[in-house]
């Protein structure tokens, strides 16, 4: 286990971004941020030998306001979080949540089988399971001894 207080913290951080390839979030971060008024939902990406799983935090979003698409090796999660309406006069004592359009584009590090992608959305968490296409899956290479 690498100690986090090590002076090599920068090396560790670079290794993390190299894990999935630096281009992974190139579209999801700064360029997109300035181009539109959309907010960026937080995402997780987990890779297993067979699948890529992408999770996104989308509390308060209705399924009909969510749009997921894939194109050219990019996964795009886009939609809008509508603000709840309270009747009558409303005074805010505290306001921390954000509403409105959101978008996140993730460049997938491996090829996936688009036909078998499954998405589940419950309790405000979107989970997309992308099975890797056959050439992306790890293959055991038999070594012939002779």
């Amino acid at each position: 286990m690498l100690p986090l207080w090590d002076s090599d913290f920068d090396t560790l951080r670079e290794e993390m971004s190299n894990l999935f390839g630096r281009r992974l979030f190139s579209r999801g971060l700064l360029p997109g941020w300035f181009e539109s008024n959309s907010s960026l939902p937080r995402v997780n990406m987990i890779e297993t030998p067979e699948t890529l799983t992408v999770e996104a935090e989308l509390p308060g979003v209705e399924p009909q306001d969510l749009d997921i698409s894939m194109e050219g090796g990019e996964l795009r999660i886009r939609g809008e979080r509508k603000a709840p309406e309270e009747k009558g006069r409303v005074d805010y004592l505290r306001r921390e949540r954000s509403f409105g359009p959101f978008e996140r584009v993730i460049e997938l590090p491996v090829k996936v089988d688009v036909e078998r992608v499954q998405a589940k959305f419950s309790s405000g968490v979107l989970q997309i399971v992308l099975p890797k296409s056959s050439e992306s899956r790890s293959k055991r290479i038999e070594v012939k001894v002779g």
Partner: protein
Amino acid sequence: MAQAKSDRTRKPRAEEVETCPVREDRGGYCVPRVDICETDREIVVAADMPGVERSAVEVAIDHGLLTLLGRVTRKSLKDVKQFYEEFLPEDYYRAFRLDAAVDEDSVSAEMNRGVLTVRLRKSGPARVRRIEVR
């Protein structure tokens, strides 16, 4: 001379309580984002707790102290090769001290799409009472 104080000058406040229950197994809780608003009749507290199901929520109010707790059930995947996480499967906790006069028996809570909404009916009069000065 008696001071007549109308309800409007005294705005209800919801102060955050700094204390957080200590957890033995994990480091701490995730702090959910919260909106608190006041309507004519209610104080409405809405907290974003994605990943929390309806059955895993605990809401309590005790002498003006409102506590919100949401437990996250996340299945861990097997054979994880690599991962990148911007949000962790941590439970949510937040507490507020409500200054307003609320009817603690009227508290209702709703959990929908990862958003916890707590409604508390105000127990005082909803409108400003005009006091006639003789």
